[in-house]
């Protein structure tokens, strides 16, 4: 935490210095992609996309979910072969054959998904594919020595011998960044790097980016967070439905402009209009719940119709808490009171039976069966209650699913479509749909907009508010402070796996929350 606090105190606006050093128009184009096309069965991921990158420039690539950003980056990193198009590095056309080839050309990619081998230690992961070796024999000492340097660089003060599987998501992401840095790339691609990073970790990353820029490294930066883009990017390229829709300089790139390009229309109201929540019926009361592995029990309550926001740094223990309430890991002590009845959840079944639902943080891993259709996913928790019980009723199932598809405006060709084929935001709506079909009393949403594009985000916000208005108690976990402030009626701030404070929204500002989160 030492590093974090220092960064916080010095309060350098790296965004400013980033752009101050940019001499983009003067610096040469080192990478140019032309006419890139990539088709997947049923989808055209990219169609005739072009992109230029200058030396020492931070280029933001923006677009909704499924716009093709990650695909474009995978092509650039040699992981995916384009169907058509050319890539020039330093003015010379290159045929990117493989990832190794791209690495050789000085291109490094930090993936959107965490990509570490959990069974290997940090050093092994950092050097994976670029091992120091003599005659095929690993030089482990050298790799640990070198890794230490890179870990320090990203501000991770843990042993290089720690298996990656024991790290938190944020730490994993920092290791991946360290790995990319270790390649000493000329072109560094960061695909949504901050989605699992804490505030201070993000700052650390931005600081590193500034230094790299000074050294003439070019960076392609992908994020759904508008503030970051506005702060960091020298220029912005926007994709929509796999096509170029615009490119602009830092000066022209206003939030509104980017968003309207991304979604193809103007988008004004992000969050539903503010409301004054006055409900008093307590829907769910958590009393002295002792989450496994934490030091002190927590207590809080949420009222019917209320949106209770949970803010905190990554690893603050929010996911643990909601999963304990949901019964994923039974608590060591304490209980939950729902509608006047006490119970201690020991499995999601318990919670679900009582009307407490959770849309988990990792929807692909815990939320959805990707190989099943939209309808089957939506019916999964409730199908046992369809009548008659001894026989599935596909027609009823389809009807229930269709209802949710209509209500939530889930973008799918049919309820029979496999969920794995849908974009991230759409998948998130399916998760919502599966719980909404069951009339929740308490709905817990863990990072419901992570990796979801702005258009879909606004849509999800609106729907959450509608649910709250309908009297459902909502627990809304998010790492985006703006989101918390935009949505919550009350804010719970968590730090070090404890509740650091509960405040009505109007009594807190972004600054206060940030300070509480890091313990100042």
């Amino acid at each position, binding site marked *: 935490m030492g590093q974090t606090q220092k960064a916080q105190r010095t309060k350098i606006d790296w965004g400013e210095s980033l752009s101050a050093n940019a001499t983009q128009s003067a610096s040469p184009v080192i990478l140019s992609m032309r006419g890139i096309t990539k*088709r997947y069965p*049923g989808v055209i991921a990219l169609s005739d996309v072009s992109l230029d990158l200058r030396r020492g420039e931070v280029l933001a690539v923006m677009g909704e979910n499924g716009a093709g950003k990650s695909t474009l980056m995978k092509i650039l990193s040699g992981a995916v072969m384009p169907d058509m198009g050319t890539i020039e590095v330093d003015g010379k056309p290159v045929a990117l054959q493989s990832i190794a080839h791209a690495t050789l050309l000085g291109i490094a990619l930090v993936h959107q998904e965490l990509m570490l081998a959990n069974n290997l230690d940090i050093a092994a992961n950092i050097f994976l594919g670029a091992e120091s070796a003599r005659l095929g024999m690993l030089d482990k000492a050298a790799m640990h020595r070198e890794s230490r340097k890179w870990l320090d660089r990203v501000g991770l003060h843990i042993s290089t011998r720690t298996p990656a599987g024991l790290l938190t998501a944020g730490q994993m992401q920092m290791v991946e960044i360290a790995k990319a840095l270790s390649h000493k790339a000329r072109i560094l691609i960061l695909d949504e790097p901050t989605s699992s990073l804490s505030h201070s970790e993000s700052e650390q990353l931005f600081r590193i980016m500034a230094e790299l820029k000074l050294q003439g490294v070019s960076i392609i930066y992908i994020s759904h967070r508008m503030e970051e883009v506005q702060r960091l990017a020298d220029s912005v390229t926007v994709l929509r439905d796999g096509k170029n829709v615009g490119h602009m300089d830092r000066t022209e790139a206003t939030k509104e402009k980017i968003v309207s390009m991304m979604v193809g229309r103007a988008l004004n109201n992000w969050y539903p209009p503010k409301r004054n929540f006055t409900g008093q019926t307590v829907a769910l009361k958590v009393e002295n719940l002792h989450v496994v592995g934490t030091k002190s029990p927590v207590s809080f309550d949420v009222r019917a119709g209320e949106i209770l926001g949970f803010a905190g740094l990554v690893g603050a223990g929010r996911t643990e808490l909601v999963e304990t309430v949901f019964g994923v890991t039974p608590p060591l002590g304490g209980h939950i009171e729902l509608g006047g009845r006490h119970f201690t959840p020991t*499995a*999601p079944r318990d919670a*679900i039976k009582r009307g407490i639902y959770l849309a988990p943080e990792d929807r692909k891993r*815990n939320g959805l*069966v990707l190989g*099943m259709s939209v309808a089957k996913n939506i019916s*999964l928790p409730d199908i046992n209650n369809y009548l008659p019980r001894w026989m*599935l009723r596909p027609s009823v199932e389809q009807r229930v699913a269709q209802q949710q598809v209509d209500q939530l405006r889930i973008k799918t060709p049919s309820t029979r479509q496999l969920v794995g084929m849908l974009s991230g935001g759409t998948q998130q709506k399916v998760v919502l749909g599966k719980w909404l079909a069951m009339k929740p009393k308490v709905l817990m949403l863990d990072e419901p907009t992570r990796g979801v594009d702005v258009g879909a985000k606004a849509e999800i916000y609106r729907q959450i508010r509608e649910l709250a208005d309908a009297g459902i108690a909502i627990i809304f976990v998010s790492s985006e402070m703006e989101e918390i402030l935009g949505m919550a009626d009350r804010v719970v701030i968590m730090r070090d796996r404890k509740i650091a404070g509960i405040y009505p929204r109007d009594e807190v500002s972004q600054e206060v929350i940030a300070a509480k989160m890091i313990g100042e």
Partner: protein
Amino acid sequence: MRRELGMAVAVAVICAFLWYSNHHFIGQYNILDLLRSVGMLGILAIGSSLVIITGGIDLSVGAIVCLTGVLIAKISSPSTGGLHYPMWIGISVALLAALLIGIFQGLLVTRMGLQPFIVTLGGLMWIRGIAEVIINGRTISFGSSSFTNLANSGLLNIGHEAIFSYPFLGFVAAVILGGYLLHMTVYGRYLFAIGGNRDAAYYSGLPVKRVELGAYVISALTAGISGIFYASFIQDAGPTVGHGYELYAIAAAVIGGVSLRGGEGTIVGVIIGTSMMEVINNGITMFQWHYHNSKGHLRTFHLGTHWQDFITGAVILLAVIFDQVSHFVARRKRLKAQAAKTA
């Protein structure tokens, strides 16, 4: 169903070819025989499929077939070595044993979190081991007991032959029950969901462990039932019966489109896969070729039985390769069509 269709066509082609080579292939006698074999392996394959659909595997079913036969023989055979109890006692004890084994293995997998492969690999050995210990390394014959009629007789007799032998009727029942369970009940849906994504199933409130346990229990029970039929078919119980049948059952399931990764498969596919295995098996004897030798005599060529393993293995490989290739081709076609539309 695309995969099932492809395999069904393949089976049909092989049948046509065999019929062309030897008209007896479609003879009443051979058909009934084939149906019975399909029945006995099929019951086994259905149970195995349920487990595979949850993403697990059951290597112990061959050993259960063995143990079932040994138990029935030991308890109820009227011959030497048997204890002469009524047949229903032997059968009940055998099925009870299968049930207990299923529960035991299921609990190890679900409650202890052990890997199905290793649990049932251990099972493959200790279950057969128990059979060996019980029978003390011998065989016990069912002799002239009426139990031996089980595999031979059935409904709708034509002369000596039952058109629907009991093993086949058992299979039909298993198909109906299995198909209902797998495709029309909540339980079946849960099996697929667990195989598709265990965590998501758990987070959706499914009783994951109980459902999985059920699959191992059903697998053991079907193995027990199949074991009864095999015992009656062989009319003899010994420690080597059922050796390797788990692999045949798995192969039948996989050929029929049940994915070893879990979450995929149909009862129809299992029927087709089992038919493929048994048609090949039967075809190796039935296949013949008439030719004239150098002296102009008419000669008939037959395949030696030592070709059996080679052909079975090759067919399994060809089936999965064929499936994968057709997958690739379909993909390629769709991409081309897409490109054409765009251009």
